[in-house]
């Protein structure tokens, strides 16, 4: 986790000179040793990351059977001839389900993920700003304090919210004692609780990229904008936002993508109405033991996520290139 870095212009200039002078930095003649080094991580990721997705895709094209494993084989041999049967039922049933459960839960998941992202951004930006502009010593402490909850168990954090959002929990008690409400309000099992949970758990993932983006901001631009008669709000959108654009996008993707498939938070805090797609997948898999359908749900989710993942990947690469130029 980067704690931000100051950018020194002379450094960058020298780095550019260096790169031009030594093309070897850009074009490296790989040796067998380099390939030996690539081997382990690459093969690991191929087997344990790429291969599983091919398998999911394969299984999503079969139908459920009462067998071990509980799905029909894709390739069968009948009378000596090889038969490949691709079942598209799983996909069609997702879209043509009479109750519209799947479609509705996809839309609900998108909605929850999108709103959570916006909330995280609205809350996270001021926090990141407060961190980035504090004195270095204070900044270290605050930084640690903001990050620390995410190092404790997720379930424990959700559990903590369950205890204070209960009917007789701390929040209701305080609100009643203050006379704001007369009778306890139902917070658990509502969408509100899900939003609170997601924002609480994903906030650090938003704050971190924003923080490191804000650390790199050239604050003299703000002064220049003020000097040229720009109003605060306009200044914010014309100087800070463009400079932290990559941080904003990276943070948003870090919240949006995992939130879309979130299972634990809606399961523990959400009610019947928050049937998100993560829960559907879980239920199909564990309760109904319909592996092919669960796979089809996962593949559909992946298709939805391809665009955000590609955006995140692009941003990551661009930041990387920038760092290369800066080093």
């Amino acid at each position, binding site marked *: 986790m980067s704690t931000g870095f100051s950018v020194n212009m002379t450094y960058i200039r020298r780095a550019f*000179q260096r790169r*031009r*002078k*030594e*093309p*070897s930095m850009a*074009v490296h*003649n790989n040796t067998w040793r380099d390939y030996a080094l690539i081997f382990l991580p690459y093969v690991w990721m191929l087997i344990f990351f790429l291969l599983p997705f091919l398998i999911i895709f394969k299984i999503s094209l079969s139908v459920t059977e009462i067998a071990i494993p509980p799905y029909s084989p894709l390739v069968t041999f009948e009378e000596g001839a090889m038969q490949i049967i691709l079942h598209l039922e799983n996909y069609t049933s997702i879209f043509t389900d009479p109750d519209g459960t799947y479609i509705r839960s996809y839309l609900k998941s998108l909605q929850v993920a999108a709103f959570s992202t916006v909330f995280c951004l609205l809350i996270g930006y001021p926090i990141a700003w407060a961190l980035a502009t504090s004195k270095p010593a204070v900044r270290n402490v605050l930084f640690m304090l903001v990050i620390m909850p995410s190092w404790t168990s997720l379930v424990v954090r959700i559990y903590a919210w369950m205890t204070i959002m209960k009917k007789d929990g701390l929040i209701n008690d305080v609100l009643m004692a203050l006379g704001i409400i007369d009778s306890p309000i139902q917070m658990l099992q509502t969408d509100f609780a899900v939003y609170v949970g997601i924002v609480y758990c994903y906030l650090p993932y938003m704050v971190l990229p924003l923080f490191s983006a804000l650390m790199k901001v050239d604050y003299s631009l703000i002064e220049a904008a003020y000097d040229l008669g720009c109003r605060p709000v306009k200044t914010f959108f014309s100087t800070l936002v463009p400079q932290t654009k990559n941080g904003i996008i990276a943070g948003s993707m870090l919240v949006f993508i995992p939130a879309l498939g979130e299972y634990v938070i809606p399961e523990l805090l959400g009610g019947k109405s928050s049937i998100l797609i993560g829960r559907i997948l879980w239920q199909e898999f564990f309760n109904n033991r319909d592996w092919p359908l669960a796979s089809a749900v996962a593949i559909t989710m992946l298709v939805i996520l391809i665009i955000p993942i590609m955006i995140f990947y692009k941003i990551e690469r661009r930041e990387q290139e920038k760092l290369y130029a800066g080093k």
Partner: protein
Amino acid sequence: MTTERAAAAQAAAEENTAAQQNQPVKQMHLPGQLPGQKPTPQQQNRKPILEIKHLTKQFEAFTAVNDVDLTLYQGEIFALLGSSGCGKSTLLRMLAGFETPTSGSILLDGRELIGVPPYKRPVNMMFQSYALFPYMTVKQNIAFGLKQSKLPKAQIEERVEKMLRLVHMEEYVDRKPYQLSGGQRQRVALARSLAKEPRVLLLDEPMGALDKKLREQMRLELVDIINSVGVTCLMVTHDQEEAMTMADRIAIMDKGEFLQIGGPREIYENPNCRFCAEFIGSVNIFDCHLITSNAAQSLIASKDFKNNIELTHDIDLADGMPLTIALRPEKIYISHEEPEEKTNWCEGTVENIAYLGDISIYYVRLIGGRIVCATLPNVDRFKTGLPTWDDHVYLSWDPESCIALTF
């Protein structure tokens, strides 16, 4: 310390003059035979130590070093001078073993170096950033290379001590690199690369990471240390002043090729091409054509002024062919009176004067419109009055001052 250094400088100067006296007095303006220039390594009967033959390095479509030949002699300081991207660093890195040449050979003491990994080559390098190991003290840094060659402990201790004395860093043995100033870091880096007694010392932009004000001092100090050890040294720099003060011989490099190899004086006074003339110092370049040439005299006409240029030597070119005349600003005389000679002068108006304290640079617009640069010391020895703005002046020069360049 300083008096010692002064004495050393004095000794070096005496040696220099002694070397000159041994030389027969010769005609001026022939390559390698200028007054004040050290004799070439061949003249000193030095032994070649490093021979580079037909060395080429290609990065995909880009040729960084193109068919370069170079011989380094025992004990000399040789500088590769060129702007960034000219291939000088690539050449150096090939010698150190960090790049593999596409073709050619590098012979060190007659042994082929290509294919030998960097950690087995008897050459050491001082990096531009010094590349000191940040987690080790000064002592550990210097001892690192010795430890790799598995020397006995006592010997390592002794050698480290010697190196520390050599670079005057005895007081700082236990410091880490971050606790040192720029100049001290450079000394540690130098000591570290000298500790293994390399056959050839490679210096990559030795002053590149130093403050401007420190450079001047460190240059002389570095040369003193290198000379006292007697190591052969190949340095890479983009700073002509650095190359000229430190090196015995300089190679000017451009686009992966050597344009000229010679002593500092030779390179300045006798550039062999327009690029070299313009690269070192400032120069006025005139496009001309040859009128006639014989053994004693050559006549050249310039487009920029009406009088001809006259040289006192032969030019190997057909009459009427174009050529370039280069003229250094400090070799131009400025006067208010018209010269008596028929050749080697022109006239114009002082357009601008840049006052630099010791000298002034005069920008004189010739009648044809061309601006010529001339420098003049700010002393009016003959009390004739120094030229000032809008004065009509005559610029003249000696025939030997003109450099005729055919490409």
